[in-house]
């Protein structure tokens, strides 16, 4: 243990430089803010993740956001355990029929003003599961979506660029 701690103290952090906020996301978000006149949230965001029916690949990349290379928390972003603590609901996967009620209840539990991100091809429009018999579609089949992050699964860098756009547009 002490060798690992010593190594970590004596070497530079491996964290990547911050990616630029996703320009497409910035534009889309700017429009939504103008349209809705929504309040700004400040410089940090608490994110609650809900898997609405994903194949679990998106979850692997969400986990990767917390590793030392991506180090999500240096940007003031963090995942929280309860929707009641969250500013952002991040949805992955197509909405499975059996998850519809749970997704809606989680969204209701996030206090206003809240933002919804559909992360990954499936959460955007059902992706490769669109049309499957137990799938209702993308997240917007159940709740309003503010921001989409494409990819199957989205890379951690793409997820970060989308989340940073959310911070940038609010300043």
């Amino acid at each position: 243990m002490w060798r690992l701690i010593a190594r970590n103290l004596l070497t530079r952090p491996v964290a990547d430089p911050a990616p630029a906020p996703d320009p497409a996301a910035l534009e889309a978000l700017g429009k939504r803010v103008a349209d809705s006149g929504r309040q700004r949230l400040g410089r940090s965001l608490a994110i609650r993740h809900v898997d609405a029916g994903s194949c679990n690949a998106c979850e692997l990349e969400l986990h990767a956001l917390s590793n030392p290379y991506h180090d999500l928390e240096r940007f003031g972003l963090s995942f929280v355990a309860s929707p009641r603590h969250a500013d952002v609901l991040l949805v992955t996967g197509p909405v499975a029929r059996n998850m519809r009620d749970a997704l809606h209840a989680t969204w209701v539990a996030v206090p206003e003003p809240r933002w919804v991100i559909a992360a990954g091809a499936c959460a955007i429009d059902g992706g490769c599961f669109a049309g499957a018999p137990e799938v209702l579609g993308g997240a917007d089949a159940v709740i309003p979506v503010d921001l989409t992050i494409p990819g199957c699964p989205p890379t951690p860098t793409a997820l970060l660029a989308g989340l940073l756009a959310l911070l940038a547009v609010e300043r």
Partner: protein
Amino acid sequence: MTALECFLAPYPVASVPPVLARHLDDDGWQALRSALAVEAWDLTGLWHDGGDVLATLVDPGDGTLALVRHRPNPASGGWGSLGGLRPGAIRLERTVVDRGGPRPADATDRRPWLDHQAQPTLGYPFLPVEGEGLHQVPVGPVHAGIIEPGHFRFHAQGEAVVRLEARLGYVRKGTLEAMVGRAPGDAAVLAGRLSGDTTVAHSIAFARAVEAALGIAVPARAHWLRAVMLEVERLANHFGDCGAIANDAAFALLHMECGRARERIARTAAPLFGHRLMMDRVVPGGVAVDPDDRDIAALSALLPVLAEHLAAYRRTYRGLPSLLDRTLTTGRIAPALARCYAAGGVVGRASGQAIIPGQDARTRPGVPPYDMLPVVPVGRDAGDVDARVQVRLDEIEASLALIAAMIEHMPRGEVRVVLPDTSGEGLGWAEGFRGDCQWWVRLEHGKVAAVFGRDPSWFHWPLLEAAIDGNIIADFPLINKSINGSYSGVDL
């Protein structure tokens, strides 16, 4: 000749290694039930293809594989349940019913499993518990973390868990139904997303089933590239799991160390295979990428780095009594119980199952390139969280050596062949990081007519409910993570 061979006659289901298969009439199915009561045959899959009930069996004595097929006869009361003989069959039989198949006449458990419309979790008749001072703790479907959804119902007496029962099915997408009618190449996209973390293993197993059904041989280099991807996926997930187990015991240092290793693997895989998780790289007929030597050299260079991460984990884990206190004797799965469910993968091998021939699908004969490389399943008998950590660590070490050998001996040549538009029925396997993934497919004129993919988690989830016995609720995340069942993989 094994008893299974006496029981079954050849029937045209193709696979490598070959599988014994037979149509069973009412008397034959009854004879199978009688045989299962006395023979040690493992049940490794059970599904309905729209007409027949199919089941796969393995003789644990010599690894002989078999497939039986039975047309339920409504006139004679349908079909007889195997759930009372092999408990692993119970949820598979409930799934047969939920997917529109006939119910076994003497079904052990008649509650819906995947079908939440027929029976929502609110009001679901969880198995009862009697005694004083009991309380229930409902958890999920949405959990306090980045995890897949599922509901766990704890009955506890103080802190001790008296009974745990899971209700899954929340991420049911109808994946198998969506595959029907597609060409194998299109269906493979969904097969690779039955459980996204083990995408390479499911893609290989599905591709091998399709290739067996069509009677085609894929080029040697494709087999070797598939195996490299399979081992890389194993490394990534084993590092991820070992880190997450330490994290669930509140030891973040090892979690971050494993996070580094995992990210390095993804960053090497991305340029090498074109995708961080290697999704859609294995296709029926071969592989979709042919990395050049310079890209492969990057993988060679990664191996010693990962060996250092492994050494650091072992050194740190071994030297921390406070961490060992959480993992040793926690969440014990007795070898007899693992045997009863024919548990595959790490869960089985940590509970004394490594000695069963073919338990590790890589050791089954005729599977290139593993038939040319030394694959020695590593196991433990303790069956606790620590044993599952140790098996994963040993498998990381073995995979590093296997990848080095594969890179050294990798043949050159083509990596993909074109699939004919013909018909056939095939079975395929691949040993993913969780265990053996099994796919069965029937093709008609180049299109999928019926398909079934069986994730190893089917036999791990019930064992989780046994592993928690006598433990406290606070240890549940640790035990759950050490087993790491896939939700999506079983929510068909």
